[in-house]
C-alpha cells in the first residue's frame, strides 16, 4: 500500500496552461517536501512545508499543505517547457527522523 498517492500520474499540457498536482495520504506528516527530478538526475528540492494550511509560492509555483497535514498540492501557473519533469512529494512522519516517504510521482510534459 502506497502511503502517499499522487495524482495525476501523467500530465501532458500546452505551454501557458495551468495545472495542479495532488498528494494525498491517510497519515499525518510533520513536514512535506516537493521535488522535481530530471531523467538520470537526483531530485531537486522545491519547497518544504511544515505548518497545516501553509501556502508557499516559488515564482509560478504555489504549494499548499492541508490543514490536517495529510495532503498537499502543487499548482503551476502558465506552464513552460522548462517545467517538464517528474514531480515528487515526500513526507516525514512524526518521529520519522528525516526518513522520507515518497509519493508515486507525477510526470509532467509541457509542449510548445
Amino acid at each position, binding site marked *: 500500500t502506497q502511503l502517499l498517492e499522487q495524482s495525476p500520474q501523467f500530465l501532458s499540457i500546452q505551454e501557458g496552461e495551468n495545472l495542479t498536482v495532488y498528494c494525498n495520504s491517510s497519515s499525518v506528516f*510533520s*513536514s512535506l*517536501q516537493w*521535488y522535481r527530478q530530471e531523467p*538520470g*538526475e*537526483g*531530485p*531537486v*528540492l522545491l519547497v*518544504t*512545508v*511544515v505548518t497545516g494550511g501553509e501556502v508557499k509560492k516559488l515564482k509560478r509555483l504555489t504549494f499548499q499543505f492541508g490543514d490536517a497535514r495529510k495532503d498537499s498540492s502543487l499548482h503551476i501557473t502558465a506552464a513552460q517547457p522548462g517545467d517538464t519533469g517528474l514531480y*515528487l512529494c*515526500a513526507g*516525514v512522519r*512524526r*518521529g*520519522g*527522523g*528525516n*526518513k*522520507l*516517504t*515518497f*509519493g*508515486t*510521482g507525477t510526470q509532467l510534459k509541457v509542449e510548445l
Partner: protein
Amino acid sequence: DAGVTQSPTHLIKTRGQQVTLRCSPKSGHDTVSWYQQALGQGPQFIFQYYEEEERQRGNFPDRFSGHQFPNYSSELNVNALLLGDSALYLCASSKIPDDSGNTIYFGEGSWLTVV
C-alpha cells in the same frame, strides 16, 4: 558550498558481484540516508546513518549494508548483486534528525546496472 556529492555516477556490475557507492553530505549536515529508485518509480528508503551508526532501516535485505565515517561521509555496499538491484541509488543529507521540517538534499545519484 558543495552540495551532496556521489560517486561513481555510473557503473556496470555482473550478477553475484559486490559494489560500493560513496556519498559526501552537504557542508554542515551530519545525517546521511540512502534511497533506491527503480526506473519509473519513486525513491525507496534503504537506511539512514547518524553518528556513524545505522539509525533506521527500510525493507531491504542484509545484502545492503552501509557505513558512516567520522567526517560524515558514507558508503553503501551491496553484496551478491541481483539483476533487480539495477537502479539509481540516491544519497540524501540533512542535519540531526528531527521533525521541524529539516531540509533534505539529494545528490545526483549513482546509476547501477547489473548484467
